[in-house]
């Protein structure tokens, strides 16, 4: 073994070095992931806020669009919970004219950071606990879900949900 003991020692050093290298690579990968996640999550927030802001600029309900007077019955006069969503002649986003037209709407938005899948749900909520209810109320909640193929959790894309509760009287 004389003359080869140094080789064995060097091989041992290589094994130790390999382990350190793998840890360093893992750290570099984690840094890159953090960097990209932060950048994309910033975009997710912007897209969610964009949809919520846009929906807020519309009337509370279809019956209040350009209405000369509030409905006779509040909240009973508002659109039934099962009929929330687009109304006739409102097939595309530019036609939406009330808050709940965005219910069931989904699209893929192309940005500087790639494509993001956006889907929206709007429903009535109880005025005390803000839980989903199936009858009209003076509170509607919008939930915007944004996903990107580059923001993953496990095997699937991570879901980012942005919410906003709107009150009929606070318009």
């Amino acid at each position, binding site marked *: 073994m*004389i*003359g*080869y*003991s*140094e*080789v064995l*020692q*060097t*091989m041992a*050093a*290589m094994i130790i*070095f390999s382990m*350190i*290298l793998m840890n*360093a690579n893992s*750290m*570099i990968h984690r*840094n*890159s992931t*953090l*960097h990209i996640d*932060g*950048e994309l999550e*910033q*975009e997710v927030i*912007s897209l969610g*806020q*964009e949809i919520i*802001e*846009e929906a*807020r*600029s519309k009337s509370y309900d279809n019956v209040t669009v350009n209405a000369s007077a509030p409905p006779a019955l509040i909240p009973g006069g508002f659109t039934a919970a099962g009929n929330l969503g687009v109304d006739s002649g409102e097939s*595309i*986003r*530019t036609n*939406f004219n009330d808050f709940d037209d965005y219910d069931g709407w989904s699209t893929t938005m*192309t*940005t*500087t*950071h790639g494509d993001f899948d956006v889907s929206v749900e709007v429903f009535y909520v109880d005025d005390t606990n803000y839980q989903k209810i199936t009858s009209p109320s003076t509170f509607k909640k919008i939930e915007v879900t944004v996903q990107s193929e580059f923001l993953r959790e496990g095997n699937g894309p991570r879901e980012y949900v942005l919410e906003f509760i709107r009150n009929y009287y606070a318009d």
Partner: protein
Amino acid sequence: MNIGMVTSYIIAGMLLLGIAMMNINVQSSTAELTISQMVREHMVNITEILNDDVPNMGYHVDRTTADVSSTGNRILLEADSSKISFYRNLTDDASRTPDLITWELKQDTVFTGNPGIKTLTRSVQFQSTGTPDENDIQLGVTRFQIRYYDTVGEPLGNNMPTPLTAAQLQDVEQIYIVMEVQSREPVLQRATGDGRFVRTVWEKRFTPMNLQ
């Protein structure tokens, strides 16, 4: 000198080189992450002001829209691809005439380290006193692009051509802003070479209530 000794010296040399390279890579990655956090912090500082200014354009008091008789009751005074001027009341003082806010990306060079960085200016013309207040933001902005839409929800590519005419100013319903901030100095991947600038991009489409 025996062959084992020679071999071990060669391998040891390779190991040392490997360690040095690994050290450079780790340092570079950490530096990039730190600089990206700084760049993003700069971006947040600017977008906080924009997120207050743009949605509130045309704001007066008690949910009324700015009434600026001298400009034909317009909210927007000027709308170009890198400049926007609009009125808003900065306070809740009903007696105050709404102030004129202007955002503009100047075509200058701020830092020699990154020649792409320009000055982003937010100026406030206090209408009550007539005093202008200009605030130069030199936090690494390299791009500040504005697009205007006359219908809510239009595809991004269907923007109005800029600059907008006086008649078109009253048709604007949505405003899309994209801004890019870069680091002042490049991050070097090797001991030599130019390196590259760390950048972050923010974009948002606003729907100001007073433009609806």
